[in-house]
């Protein structure tokens, strides 16, 4: 009977742990996506600067 209680608890704990591990993977995927976006922003920022600087030089 005691064993029974333990098995039941393990079943519930597994399901909870599964949610937790999935959340961790979600966070990793989100971080990867953010990283990509930041580097895209930087590239765009620097290209904007590059294209405007000749004009500034002319003034």
């Amino acid at each position, binding site marked *: 009977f005691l064993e*029974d209680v333990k*098995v*039941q608890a393990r*079943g*519930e704990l*597994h*399901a*909870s742990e*599964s*949610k937790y591990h*999935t*959340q961790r*993977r*979600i966070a*990793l*995927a*989100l971080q*990867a*996506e953010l990283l*990509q976006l930041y580097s895209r922003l930087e590239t765009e920022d620097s290209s904007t600067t590059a294209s405007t600087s000749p004009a500034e030089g002319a003034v």
Partner: protein
Amino acid sequence: AYYEKVGFRGVEEKRSLEILLKDNPLDVEKLSTFSQRFPLPSMYRIHVWKVLLGILPPHTDSHALVSRYRAEQFEDVSSALTAMRFVNAATPPTELYLRMYQLEIQQLPRRSELRSPVGGDEHFLAVARAMEEIVDDPVDCYWMIKCFVNQFNHKFGDSIPHLPKSLEHFLSQEDSGLLAHLKASGSLASLPYSLWFRRCFAGGLPESSLQRVWDKVISGSCKILVFVAVEILLSYKIMLMGINHPDGVFNFLSNMPQENTDAIVTKAIDLWHKYCGTPMHSV
């Protein structure tokens, strides 16, 4: 006679399954044995599959809590994918399930490199499309696809490459003439093995027949796939004997007629019991 054979036995079987389902905790072993021996009544199929696939634990007291956890996990993953713009409201559910699965196993491609599905993705999608026909609720559907695919690969991954040999063996027992023809025409090497042994006939059999095959796969047998393949070959023997090109055979079997599939599956299950025995645990 039909009623006696199928109907009456069906009532008895249903009653014994109901008794099994009243156990707390559920005896997963006995449920597997039942499912190996008898077709699952459709009203209990999804519930039994969820227990056999480990989506629900044996203790029925925990079912409500665990179901809630499963639903939360589904919601977490799908809303994250929406936030990442991998999916939107217009994404077909099967593609959503694929991306969810990829995220969960950490194999989500970069969004900039999202490609049309390849290889293993196609197998997953085929299983997903078939499961969608069987299971209405999206949360249940996703979990069943995911656990079906995981369990299948985990339990049978090592056996799959041997199934074509096994098919050859049993076909030689049942119809050596047909086997000889398939060999001579070069067709044996290029039968639709992926459809049969990777997708478990998802997309090849209509859902009513397919679920009876999956009853056996989910409860622990991948051998059943071989016997379904054997019975398909036997059923279309006359047709196949007339095709001398491997491509012709492949194309015919990949798009086989959907008419007699129930009978084919029934014969396949009988053949499987004949060669592999009926599990004898008392139910």
